């Protein structure tokens, strides 16, 4: 483990333990605050079958996502640190102030709110309904084409609307990623060189039929200026301006849940003669819960106008079409086994994946 990773892991634990004794939802009588320390652990394997040797790579990995928080009065600090066989990264570190009930102002590193999936599930595998996330919501280091991590300020509020409903608003402003090689490189708090990332903004608004429930319908929008490195792009442009507009819904009817999101992405290479280009991507997902902790999920992901996008050409691994089926068994409290089968289309190649995952949250 790198020295930074060790320091960050220690910091995460300190965040949760900074309060009155060890936490996990506990507090001492009369204590000044409450802390949480959760470990989202997972281990998974994937077998890939493809007609292209480029994608024919079996793999196995294990992750521990450490989430720590400490709340005292109106102040809260939240950290999320991912330790895996592939990487160690401080994903979120936010310092917040609840200025009024359900209205928070945060500064730090956060997941930008225009990503519907990631602001809901973050890195907690156990709380994700499927093993994989939709391609358009992929993290930057997983070949994601949209910025996901900002360093800056985030405001969140949830307002009552009508007798039982609510309006959820989130807005973020900060430094976004740059593009190096074939990967978006988000700003890292501990890496001063990366802090020169250009300005990004992000917004999300949702109507909630029930204030305290998860059903929602809403829109998202974001904008990022992404610097291009010479190793990535050869041409007159020095950066890409990216604009994203999206719609989403999440709806539960008895044991059936529907989740859908669609994004329209406009890219413009600043300094190049070509104009703006658009592509669209989205997904439709159904999940049905059955007795004994079993659930079945199906998701269809699609995209349009991707072939003509010079921006997407910078990401050769972008999956244009994908269908997945996922079976999950919550075999004991806070432990689940999942099997997922996916069929992907990547640059003319058919790639089939078979995944198996154990996920849990401890303690």
């Amino acid at each position, binding site marked *: 483990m790198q020295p930074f990773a060790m320091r960050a892991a220690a910091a995460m634990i300190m965040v949760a333990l900074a309060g009155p004794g060890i*936490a*996990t*939802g*506990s*507090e001492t*009588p*009369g*204590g000044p605050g*409450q*802390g*949480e320390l*959760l470990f*989202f652990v997972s281990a998974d394997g994937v077998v890939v079958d493809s007609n292209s040797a480029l994608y024919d790579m079996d793999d196995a990995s294990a992750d521990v996502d450490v*989430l720590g*928080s*400490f*709340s005292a009065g109106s102040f*809260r*600090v*939240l950290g999320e640190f991912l330790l895996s066989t592939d990487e160690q990264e401080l994903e979120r570190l*936010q310092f*917040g102030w*609840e200025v009024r*009930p*359900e209205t*928070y102002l945060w500064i730090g590193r956060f997941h930008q709110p225009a990503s519907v999936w990631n*602001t*809901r*599930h*973050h890195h*907690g595998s*156990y*709380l994700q309904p499927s093993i994989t996330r939709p391609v358009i919501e992929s993290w930057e280091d997983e070949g994601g084409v949209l910025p996901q991590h900002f360093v800056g300020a985030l405001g*969140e509020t*949830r307002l009552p609307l009508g007798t*039982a409903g609510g309006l959820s608003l989130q807005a973020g402003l900060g430094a976004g990623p740059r593009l190096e090689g074939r990967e978006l490189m988000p700003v890292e708090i501990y890496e001063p060189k990366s802090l020169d990332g250009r300005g990004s903004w992000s917004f999300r608004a949702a109507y909630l039929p029930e*204030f*305290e429930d*998860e059903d929602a319908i809403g829109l998202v929008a974001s904008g990022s200026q992404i610097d291009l490195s010479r190793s990535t792009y050869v041409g007159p442009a020095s950066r890409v301006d990216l604009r994203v507009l999206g719609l989403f819904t999440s709806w539960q009817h*008895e*044991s059936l849940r529907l989740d859908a999101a669609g994004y329209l992405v406009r890219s413009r290479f600043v300094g190049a003669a070509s104009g703006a280009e658009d592509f669209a991507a989205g997904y439709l997902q159904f999940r049905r819960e059955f007795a004994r*902790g079993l659930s079945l999920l199906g998701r269809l992901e699609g995209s349009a106008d991707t072939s003509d996008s010079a921006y997407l050409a910078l990401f050769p691994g972008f999956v244009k079409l994908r269908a997945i089926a996922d079976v999950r068994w*919550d075999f004991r*409290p*806070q432990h689940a086994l999942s099997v997922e089968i996916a069929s992907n289309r990547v640059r003319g190649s058919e790639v089939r994946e078979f995944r198996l995952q154990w996920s849990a*949250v401890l303690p």
Partner: protein
Amino acid sequence: MQSRRRFLALGLAALAAGRNLAEDNQAVVLVTAVGDPAFALGSLQVRKLFLGFTVLHAGHALRPVRNRSDELLDKIFLQHVMTMSAETYERRLLTMTLQQGRPRPMEVHSREELVRALLGIPHSVSFAWSSDIQGVGGLQTVKVLWRP
């Protein structure tokens, strides 16, 4: 879901009958430390509080304390107050913590722990069998949450 709820309701009724709750005039009540005699909390506010949302009373954020001292009490809390299964409730709390670092409600596992928490933690709110808090000094019943 409807049939599942009916099944749960029947199960609770059978359990309640087995414990002679009706004969004992038992009820599940919302309880807090003696302070404001006009303390009131609507059903929706109680649900928000135990999901981790901030609920204020007289300018102070209330602290939910989940009473897990009795299995039937917990089932009644989940079915009649939270209106969700235990698994769904636990997942909702974890999700709230993952998203915004919200602390989950503190849990107590005995009557003694409950009384200690309510008297020791300012602005704490919990639920209990009415008989469990009868005669306990320093506590007040806010409202009846469930009656057989």
